[in-house]
């Protein structure tokens, strides 16, 4: 059953002011230690600066093709990942840089992939839409809208059969909730009570088409009712709200009670991709969401509850800048793949690669 539904947050009224510290302390702050909270803020900063730096690198011609930036969605990526253990699985989307970093990807190897180099996560073969890191349970971003949903269910089936205690988080966007793969996957996960947490990052637009114009239900989380699983809509720009909802869903999955659906209401500040001219939304709408910046909201809350002070936050920013700079240098220095290796990695046993350069 859908437990609650939150309408799109009103940008100007949602501030941290007026809270009663101890009584209203979100559960996540009791659950996570100081180091984990610091790590969460650092990851959000890292994602923001990663995306901004990727954009700069694109403008300077270091990045081939296009990319899909998640600026404005950092609380959702990090809030979800904060509830996972390192061995838990994750599937991601075309807008997945934040998810990868949230799950623990190395920034240097991320940039190396964007630059198409051998040290990239995909040795330069996948690019920005296919970052994966099996060593951190990251089964991969996906260029197909809804492509990761069935794969997540399959990984959950394997985890259940193998009894390894892992759960799977499956990120997708509001656009994917109208794909057949979404409906088939939620149904199957529910019928088989599989340990999956479906996380819909509702950033209001599938490319240019709004949720209102594309989706028959008011809240995407309402669709959970059809698949007999809990569905909850949360403020996706608030770290604590995302983390607490995910924690509850992860606990349910670990108890063997089956899947959940979490809808994170958020907003992508940049366009869909580099071709976007923002003709489908207003400057005012973008600005209203910029006032609800997830990093600022998180920092304000940490200050309010006395969980971190300003010098610590400044120190995080400094260390993030250092990490980004070093990562870009690492990526630039990485070798490009050789055309002689064009058909490598098509097959595990290269003998069957059937290519001009295989065998």
């Amino acid at each position, binding site marked *: 059953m859908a437990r609650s539904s939150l309408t799109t947050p009103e940008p100007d009224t949602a501030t941290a002011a007026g809270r009663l510290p101890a009584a209203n302390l979100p559960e996540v702050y009791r659950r996570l230690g100081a180091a984990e909270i610091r790590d969460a803020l650092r990851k959000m900063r890292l994602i923001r600066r990663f995306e901004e730096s990727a954009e700069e690198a694109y403008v300077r011609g270091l990045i081939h093709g296009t990319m899909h930036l998640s600026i404005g969605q950092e609380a959702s990526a990090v809030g979800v990942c904060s509830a996972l253990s390192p061995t838990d699985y994750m599937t991601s989307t075309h807008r997945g840089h934040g998810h990868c970093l949230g799950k623990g990807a190395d920034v240097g190897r991320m940039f190396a992939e964007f630059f198409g180099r051998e040290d990239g996560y*995909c040795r330069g073969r996948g690019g920005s839409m296919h970052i994966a890191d099996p060593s951190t349970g990251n089964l991969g971003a996906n260029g197909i809208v809804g*492509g990761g949903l069935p794969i997540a269910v399959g990984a959950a089936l394997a985890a259940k059969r193998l009894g390894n205690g892992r759960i799977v988080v499956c990120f997708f966007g509001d656009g994917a909730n109208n794909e057949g793969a979404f409906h088939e996957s939620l*149904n*199957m996960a529910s019928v088989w009570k599989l340990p999956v947490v479906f996380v819909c990052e509702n950033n209001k637009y599938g490319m240019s088409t709004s949720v209102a114009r594309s989706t028959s239900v008011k809240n995407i989380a309402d669709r959970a009712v059809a698949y007999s699983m809990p569905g909850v809509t949360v403020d996706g720009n608030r770290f604590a709200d995302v983390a607490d909802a995910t924690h509850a869903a992860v606990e349910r999955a670990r108890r063997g009670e089956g899947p959940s659906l979490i809808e994170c209401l958020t907003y992508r500040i940049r366009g869909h991709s580099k071709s976007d001219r923002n003709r489908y939304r207003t400057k005012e709408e973008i600005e209203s969401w910029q006032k609800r910046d997830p990093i600022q909201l998180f920092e304000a809350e940490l200050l309010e509850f006395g969980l971190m002070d300003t010098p610590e936050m400044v120190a995080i920013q400094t260390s993030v800048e250092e990490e980004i700079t070093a990562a870009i240098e690492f990526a630039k220095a990485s070798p490009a793949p050789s055309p002689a290796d064009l058909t490598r990695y098509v097959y595990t046993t290269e003998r069957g690669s059937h290519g001009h350069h295989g065998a």
Partner: protein
Amino acid sequence: MDTMVRELSYSQAIQEAMAIAMERDPRVFLMGEDIGVYGGAFQVTGDLVHRFGEDRVMDMPISELAGAGVAVGAALAGMRPVFEFQFSDFATLGMEQIVNQAAKLRFMLGGAVSVPLVMRFPAGSGTGAAAQHSQSLEAWLAHVPGLKVVQPSTPHDAKGLLLAAIEDPDPVMIFEHKLLYKTKGPVPEGWYTVPLDRAEIRREGRDLTVVATSIMVIKALEAAATLAQEGIELEVVDLRSLRPIDTETLIASVSRTHRLMCVYEGVKTLGIGSEVSAAIAESEAFDLLDAPIVRLGGAECPLPYNPELEKAAVPQVADIVETARRLVQGRI
């Protein structure tokens, strides 16, 4: 290899392979529509659910797209799924996961993962099931790098190719012909494999190489027996593997016979025979050809219901006899 002569049907051979694989490896499981107590639409899984239980012989909802993707995800996360599409035609519903995901994940991720997945596709016409339950779509999948595609024509190969596929680290697509399920042949006991990348010469002959796939191998052998009475000797090559194609065996055969005919049930245009023809035309065997290369393939229409129309839509023994005779006699 155990060479004991024991006859099994093609479907029994497949079932035995699945049972042996599940006994040997706890990661192997079967997934599909109505493969449990129903036994599969063609009774290929039969009673396996009673031996291995519902967790390993899993009925799934009628959701081919997610089902195919679940198999991909399970393979990524340590299992060895063997997925049955109830009819090969339904592969169209799972194509996204087969083509965009299973085939490409290893390459896209720079070799970081393998997708050890087997998919079985009951294919072909001759059952009166009309246009949406009779297709031969193997060439579609053979077009996709990252997949391996095989078509067994005998019970022996049906078992050996399936066991090889289950052991293989990459996604293997097996196209079984529905009319072959009841055909019988010698099948060794126990575990053995047949290579996923080798054609097999089924009959040697000096006059014409006939490269055939699946049930067309059986038809070509019948045609060869007929023509042998006229003194025309066909060499029948069972292509068996569509990706990769064993060009070595094909070139060697055509270099001996100096003539090539391809026989396949899939639609003729852009079918597997087109690729085989091109492989020979591009090879050193081209200069040795004494006649044009000829393709006999499926008609350029959806499969019809009426039995006479249905037969007319795919190559028959008489078509192979007639075309081969004209080719050898220099009338083409």
